[in-house]
């Protein structure tokens, strides 16, 4: 007799014991929650609401992701792929580590949602009895509402059939006649299936270091530095965007075109301007009182864990922020609360996995408000 059939009999015996003893079944560990079709969670009843909310802005028809996850038939064949991506922590593509210090706008599955989806993909992917919902395409709209200023790319970009990936810089036709503070910036792709990520930046005519206003990735609403705070766009300075185009396998060997639009949300009235400071891996000492607002890596290789802390002159240590890197998914991680540090504070960087010189870190700071 096979071991399985004995095991099944044993489970029946166990259930009988539970019934006799009055053990509530919700407290009983699922003994068979393993390889057969055992998932107590089903697609339409449990998984769909989670993927709709957390994955649906990309994993839907017309989105940057190569497959929709918004119907049972669309999602089920990807079960093993979903399992690998979720257990590796690669999806959703937000890699902040709130365990180091609280971060704003976290885009993660809750532990329970994560477990629901992993149970479903590992446990036989049952469809469930919930009413199927028609698949809705990606809504390609401004995610913070109508911007104050919009600039279309100067030209339509076409990736030829034989090109699967390209990065292009565009100077936008944006004559700036006075200093402005930009609270947030967004990209509206012309073709959301190929616009993978983007940097919106200002660059002075005097060769000043470009100031990155937004590190854009699809699916996330553009964040802002907070009340009365913005990125300075000086009069006469150019506004530019670097777009990373990437075709998924669905569009391989097919030409694809895009003409995106950049939108700016301006700060009304006066405010403090955010400065991006390069942060060497060896650390940096600040020469004035500062508030740290955000941290990011640029052109980072994958799988580097970054932790940044402030060591104040009195020796006390304040965690600033932590994140992991993922190539092609550079983004800014905003601290849940600004971290105020006095002059003489040292920003300390700890990394695991990076070869020296491979990682370029930035910390975004403002002058603290006068108390």
């Amino acid at each position, binding site marked *: *007799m*096979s*071991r*399985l059939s*004995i*095991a099944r*009999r*044993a*489970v029946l*015996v*166990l259930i009988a*014991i539970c019934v006799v003893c009055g*053990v509530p079944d919700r*407290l*009983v*560990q*699922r*003994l068979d*929650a*393993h*390889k*057969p*079709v055992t998932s107590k969670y089903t697609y339409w009843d449990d998984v769909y609401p989670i993927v709709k909310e957390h994955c649906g802005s990309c994993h839907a028809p017309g989105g940057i992701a*190569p*497959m929709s996850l918004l119907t049972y*038939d669309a999602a089920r*064949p*990807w*079960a*093993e*792929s979903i*399992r*690998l991506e*979720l*257990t590796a*922590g690669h999806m959703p593509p937000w890699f902040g*580590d*709130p*365990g180091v210090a*609280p*971060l704003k706008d*976290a885009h*993660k*599955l*809750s*532990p*329970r949602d*994560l*477990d629901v989806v*992993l149970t479903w993909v*590992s446990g*036989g992917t*049952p*469809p469930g009895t919930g009413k199927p919902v028609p698949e809705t395409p990606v809504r390609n709209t401004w995610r913070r509402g109508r911007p104050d200023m919009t600039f279309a790319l100067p030209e339509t970009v076409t990736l030829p059939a034989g090109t699967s990936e390209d990065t292009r810089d565009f100077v936008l036709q944006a004559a700036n006649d006075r200093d402005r503070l930009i609270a947030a910036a967004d990209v509206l792709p012309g073709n959301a299936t190929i616009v993978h990520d983007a940097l919106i930046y200002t660059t002075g005519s005097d060769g000043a270091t470009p100031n990155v206003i937004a590190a854009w990735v699809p699916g996330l609403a553009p964040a802002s530095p907070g009340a009365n705070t913005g990125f300075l766009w000086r009069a006469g300075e150019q506004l530019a965007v670097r777009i990373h185009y990437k075709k998924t*396998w669905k569009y*391989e060997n097919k030409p694809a075109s895009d003409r995106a639009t950049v939108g700016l949300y301006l700060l009304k009235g006066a405010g403090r301007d955010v400065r991006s400071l390069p942060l060497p891996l060896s650390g940096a000492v600040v020469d004035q009182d500062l508030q740290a607002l955000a941290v990011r890596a640029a052109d980072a290789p994958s799988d580097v864990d970054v932790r940044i802390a402030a060591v104040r002159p009195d020796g006390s240590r304040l965690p600033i922020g932590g994140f992991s890197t993922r190539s092609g998914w550079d983004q800014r991680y905003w601290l*849940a609360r600004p971290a105020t540090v006095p002059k003489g504070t040292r920003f300390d960087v700890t990394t695991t996995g990076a070869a020296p010189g491979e990682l370029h870190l930035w910390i975004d700071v403002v002058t603290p408000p006068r108390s």
Partner: protein
Amino acid sequence: MLAQSDKPTESIWSCPVHAVVAEQNPGKCPICRRDLVLVTATVSWVCPNRPEVERPGPGRCADGSQAEKRYVQSTHANHNPRHGGLFFMAPDLWHHLEGTYESDEIFRVFLYDDYTKPLPADLAKQVTGRVVTNERFEAATKTTKEITAFPLKLSADGDYLEARLGRMKFPAEMTAKLKFKNGDQEYRFDFAFAEFSVDKAATPADVASSLFEVPDDLNEVLKLLAERVTLIGDLVQKGAFSEVWVPAFQAKDLALSLDARTRTLPLAKRDVATAGIERLVRASWMLDASGDTGNRSDVEQAYGALASAAREVETTFGPAAASGGAR
């Protein structure tokens, strides 16, 4: 879910990761370029304009179009050892195997397909490999040198591969290194036998000992969590990889019960707690998967992640945190 056993099955070539791929011939996955593997799929027929409705068989649809074949992989329904040994799934997600070390001092490898059916004779004949009982990693060359290895030979009846090892000290640790056919990648499967394998079935007592409840008391939850981590460590140490999923999932359920308590923590600790619980959930699923494939390095990595996440959770909810509001 409907039983799929009534439907016909066919062997198709698919990607180990992208099950949407269904080809009639070997080749590369069009999505990730992995080599396609042979899988068993149940076959149904659907009309192109009504793909949600399955037809009983091939033929013409109401609109005159030809019904199309649809393949559904329905596998891995049984990962239980058949001969009292240790059961693993190969990283190609198709081959499965069970190793035994019985009192006749012979190491045997029983080979199965993805339905845990014994591998057909023509495929079993193509499997080659050896069992290594002593090997040493040489840091200078970053290579593993095999000190003692025995070739695995197909048994006379073709049911298994075997090698006579002689008497080994328990726990008897050995690594089967197998190629499923000439030119394939070699996979390693790390076995550790605590005692001679005996072809016995599980008893109800075995299963009942797994009965597990998540208590209400926080300290009890933390105590059980620490015990599970220790237990998993012991199983990993012993090489009982196919058993780690039980305490790993229990640790996961304990951690998830703590997720509902994060609001009782001081504000500054809530995100830390949630991050730790999330890591523990991921690590438990990694342990489940790596335990199946029996690769010691993967299992140890997943265990390391789980133990570290559990420590983080324990620190956040532990006695110091309790004074801050958690009960």
